[in-house]
Structure formats: C-alpha cells, structure tokens
C-alpha cells in the first residue's frame, strides 16, 4: 500500500514538474503580453529534439552520461534565440488585434514548427541513449524511483524558485509586474515595452525548451508531442488562473497528481477527472484558483 502511494505521488510530481515549466512559460507570456501562446508546446518539442542532438554529441565525444544534464540545459538555452525572432517577427503585429487573430497565429506557428521538426528529424520517434538509467534507481518504501525523475523534479523546483525570486525581488521582476498590471502606465514611466516583451517572450520560450530538453531522457520525441502537451497545459492554466505563476505551480501539481491517482483507482477516469475540475473552476471560479478577477 505504502509502495503504491509513494509511486503515485512521485509519478504525479514528475509529470507536474514538466507541465509546470511549459505552463509557466504560457503564464508569463500571457501575464505580460496578453497573448495565449499555443506555440509553447512547440518550444517544448524543439527542446526535446535539440536536447537529443546535444546529448548525442556530448556522449559521442566521451562526455559521461551523468553529466548529460549539461548539454540538455544548453539545448534549452540555445533555443532562446527563437524567442526574439518570433516576438519581433510575428507577435508584435497582433498585440492590438482581436484574441482570435492571436490564437490563430500561435496555432499556425505550432503547426509550422511541427512541420519543421518533421523536415529536420523525420517522424520516427527519437530518444537519448544511456542517460535515463545512468543515474540509477532509488528504492523508497518498496517503490522504485528513477533518480533522473528526481533530478527533473528538483530542476523544476529550482527554476520555479528562480522565477519567483526574479519576479518578486529584482528590478526586472518589478518591471514585468508593472507591465503586466498596466503596460500603458509602465510605458509612460519610461519603460521600453518592446524590450520587455522580447525578454519576457524569450524567457517564456526558454521555460518550454528546457522542459522539453529535461524530460527527453525519460521518454521519446515525437513530432506531435506539442499538441498533446498544450491540451494539458491549457487545463493547468484554467485551474491555476490565467497569468498566475503560483497558479501554474499549483495547477500543474493538481493535474499531475490527479492523473496519477486516477490511473491507479480507475484509469477510464484519467482525463474525465481533470476536465471535471476544469469545468468546475470555469463555472464557480472562472478566474482560476490564483487568477485575478477582471
């Protein structure tokens, strides 16, 4: 019994960790730029694919598997380059447009990136070798937990902590919050809004790409992984509250653990339970658990 509970708990938290990174990027961009970026799932997929490339190279030049986390993080950070390109090249044209245009644009972006992935890496599932199990397996109360899963959980918590610190205690964070509250006022106070938008979007992109890169040793990259993830990320932001980082954290945890519990209790309820909660939140607390009412 204890073994089962420990397994369920760790599986749920592991799933939540990855979901949190993607949802946090989504929240950050929405909070400041008021754009619901459906392409965040594509950043996750790009992170996964580039992570595989970096890890393969790292291992091929004799890098030890236990340090593979470094090329994975590097892949996530290198992809920061696409943030400014997409923000300046596309998004800035739709800030004042209807939300439908924004959704269509980011959805088109998602499909385009999916095709680019197929063009570069094909449609065959790809994965890293020799990394996931290189860290060993921990036995806790009879449950076997891959150490790599714990690394992802810790990495996610550290990133959440860094994000919280940046947003609460730094000048950049205060500017982000000010811009999020009232961008016209922020602009009137001399803040370069365009510059903030580029930085925030890039930060949101990197959260997604790091999420994808970190998770890849435990799974396989498939071209359609972006679409699958965005559906769950959507549930996370609705439950947590659109634009709230705390909401992303709690929402991801809730969705991750709920998924894990439902599998153990009654698998047929897996998605049903999550969406029952989404509906309940939408009906009784439409701003989400931590969102602010408008």
């Amino acid at each position, binding site marked *: 019994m204890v073994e089962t509970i420990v397994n369920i708990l760790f599986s749920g938290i592991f799933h939540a960790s990855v979901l949190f990174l993607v949802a946090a990027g989504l929240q950050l961009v929405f909070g400041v730029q008021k754009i619901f970026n459906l392409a965040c799932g594509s950043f996750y997929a790009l992170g996964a694919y580039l992570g595989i490339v970096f890890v393969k190279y790292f291992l091929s030049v004799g890098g030890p598997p236990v340090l593979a986390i470094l090329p994975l993080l590097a892949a996530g950070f290198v992809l920061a380059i696409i943030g400014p390109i997409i923000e300046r090249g596309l998004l800035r044209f739709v800030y004042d447009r209807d939300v439908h245009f924004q959704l269509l644009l980011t959805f088109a972006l998602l499909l385009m990136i999916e095709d680019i992935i197929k063009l570069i890496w094909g449609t065959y599932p790809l994965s890293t070798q020799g990394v*996931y199990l290189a860290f060993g397996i921990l036995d806790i109360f009879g449950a076997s937990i891959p150490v790599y899963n714990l690394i992802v959980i810790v990495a996610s918590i550290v990133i959440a902590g860094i994000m919280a610190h940046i947003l609460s205690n730094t000048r950049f964070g205060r500017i982000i919050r000010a811009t999020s509250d009232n961008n016209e006022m922020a602009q009137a106070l001399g803040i370069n809004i365009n510059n903030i938008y580029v930085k925030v979007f890039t930060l949101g992109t990197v959260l997604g790409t790091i999420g994808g890169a970190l*998770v890849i040793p435990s799974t396989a990259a498939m071209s*359609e992984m972006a679409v699958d993830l965005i559906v769950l990320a959507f549930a996370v932001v609705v439950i947590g509250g659109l634009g709230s980082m705390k909401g992303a954290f709690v929402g991801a945890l809730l969705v991750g653990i709920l998924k894990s519990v439902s599998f153990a209790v009654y698998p047929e309820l897996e998605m049903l339970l999550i969406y029952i909660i989404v509906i309940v939140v939408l009906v009784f607390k439409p701003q989400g658990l931590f969102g602010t009412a408008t």
Partner: protein
Amino acid sequence: MEKNRREFLKTAGVGVLGAGAAALLGSQKAFAAPAKGVPKGPVKIGIMGFQAGVAAVPGIAGIRAAQIWADQINKAGGILGRKVKLKIEEESKAKDTVEKFKKLTIKEKCDVVSGILSTGNGQAVGKEAEKIKQLWLSWDGTTQKGLIETQPKAFYGFRSVDNELEAVAGAITTAKVFPNIKKVAGIGNDYSYGRNCWAAYKRVLSMYNPGVRFEEGIFTKLGETDFSAAIDALAAKKPDLIMSSFWSGDTSIILKQAAGKRLFQKVKGCFTTGGGVHDTLKKEFTPEGLILGYNSLYFRWTDNWPLLNEFTKIYHQKHNAYPVYECCHAYFTLQAYKAAVEKCYGLTGQWPTKEQVVEALRGINVPSLSGYRGYRQDNKQECCFFMGLTTHKNSYDFVTIDPVYILPSAMIQKPEGYTFDQWATAWEKKVKG
C-alpha cells in the same frame, strides 16, 4: 488445424522457402517496349499512407517499400513492359482520405490504389472503392467495426488481415512460453485497435490457460509520452504478465519508463505489435525474455530468402533503418497486383480490366518479403506473424528475437463467413476436446 497450431509453435521456421528463390528478384533487363496487347504509357499506381502523426512511422515505411518495389520492377522491365509510375497521396482523416482516393482514381486515372493503414479510413475507402469501381489493395486498414467485418462482400476492395491477429498470435505465444501465469494486466491505445486486441487476447489465452485471471485493461491516448502513472497502476495490480498492443513510439517509451521502475524484473511481458518500432527498443531498457511481435515482417527472419535480404540491404542503405511490417504489406500488395495482371495477360493476351484483376487476385499467392503471401477468396490478406522472445545476443544496440515463432494467418484469422465470436467459440470447443 489443431495439430498444425501445435506444430508451428514448436517450429522456428516456416517451410515456405521454395526452389528458385533467387529468381524472385527478377533479371536486370533493360526497359523494353510494352508486350503485344498492352497499352502504351506507364501503369499508374496510387499509394496512400500516413506521413504525419503517430501512424507516420509505419506509413512512411510502407511508402518507402513501394518506391523500392517500383524501382526494382522498372529496372526489370516494368509490368508487361509498362513502366510503373507511383502517385503518392497522404492518408489523413477519413473524409480527406476518401477525396484523395477519388482524386487518384478520377483525376490521376490510377489503375489501382495501394495503401491505407487506418481501419476508420479503411471503412470509408472500402465503400468508395465499390462505388467508383476502383481496385483498392489495403496495407493495414481493415473494414472491421470492432471485431465484426462490415464489408464481407467487397469486390474491388482487398482488405488487410484482421486487426486482432497480433493479439491472437500474442495469446498463443503466451500460452506456449509462459503456461503457468495466473494473472494478466493489459495496456493499449485508447481506440478500437487497443480495446479489440485486449478482448481477443483475453479470449484466446483463456482457452489455453483457463485458470488465468485478467485485470481491468488500461488504455492511454495515442501519442502519450508519460506512462509513469500507468506503470504504477499496472504494478499495483501485481500481475504475472503485462500484455501491450502498443505499436508505435509508445512501446519504447513505456519500456524505458518501466525499466526505471524495474517493472519487467518482476513481471513478464507480451508486446504483441511492438516490433513495428523494433530499432527503438534499445537493449539498455528492453529486457531479454519479453514476448515481442513483429506482425508480418521480421528483418532477421532468415538468411535464405533473397527477397528479404536484398530488400533489407537496400532499405538500410537508403534510409539507415531496418524494415518493419508495413514494408511487407506494401510490397506484397504491389507484387500481388503485378502477378494478377500477368496471370490475366497469360490467359487473354490483353491488359486486363479491373474486374479481371479482381478475379485473378482471389486465391493468389506471391513471394513477398516474409515468404509467400496471398489473398483469400473473400479478398482478405494472408501472411505470417513473427513472434519471439527478446534477446540481447546480436550486434545491434536494440533487441531482436530468439527463438522465432511463426504463426500463419491461415491458422489465427477467422475464416470467411464467421464472426470472431463464432470462430472463437468453435475453437474453444475444439481445445476443450
């Protein structure tokens, strides 16, 4: 039949290797003028397979096989001197797929369409084929609804083997290899294939192991990338064996994540269809001793079937990969079409009509990548199913199987005119003696 089933389970080979196998590859003759009575211009063959999404793995493999086949045939002089020209269209949703099927027939004037992997699409294309009188040779798309055949009287449509065959083959292999298991849990994709396979597996395994108990099946969406929770749920049931009908990237993902939880150190496994992504099943996370099914093509089946050896070599050279079952389905349908056309020509001295080709295809047997394969009189494919136990004893970084059990569809597919239930009931009676 009973005797044969027992026999083939003991056999690691199938006696389909006839004389003159080298001749199967055809001579390398220059492209000649069409034979007398044969129209000029190329034979247009429509090819349809998934090129995107989860099903792109087998879809693209099938398309590649069709291209290799066309190159080989054209090098050898085409079909009765006519060059083969492939017109490739993407399989997608049923409505779009039917439109593309019509386009290949009406606009491109294809002589035949070979392809389709999805059963949902198969049902729609099957109906359309009868309506517009187009010859359709399915690769993997059945026209079943659940375990029931919806188009038993098809004329122009030649269907794949039934969906549940991998599961039937898996159940027989389980009974043979792990006769003492008491409790089985199952996981599959959450759509008709996953659920039908689980139902068929339970039914057949129960015949040979009446005491076995089955847990509630777990079904995950196609394209899932995190099975941690599902693995925990499976482990919590404490089964002796886990059956899975995963056929795409999900096979390697669940095996990798299961290795992280030491699942298959405690439990036996039967992956009925995972051989479709065999080279992703790396040794580091795929244990030895799991039952693994390759459907209709196992690239290391034998060194004595030149068609397979040559094809595997070309496929690997071109795509840096080893062929999977969809290659065999595609290759077989095209081989069958060519043989049917040539058979008709041998009788009439004329290029045949589609209706004549249909008649010639019924009961045909041609050499394909997995030995001789054919069509039944009810337009249904026949092939061998390759099952075995995973082993690390090879030069690859992924598992292969040893021993290899070969189960011909003639023995594990419901006969013409029977539902799965009727057939299984008759089989049960026979097993009980």
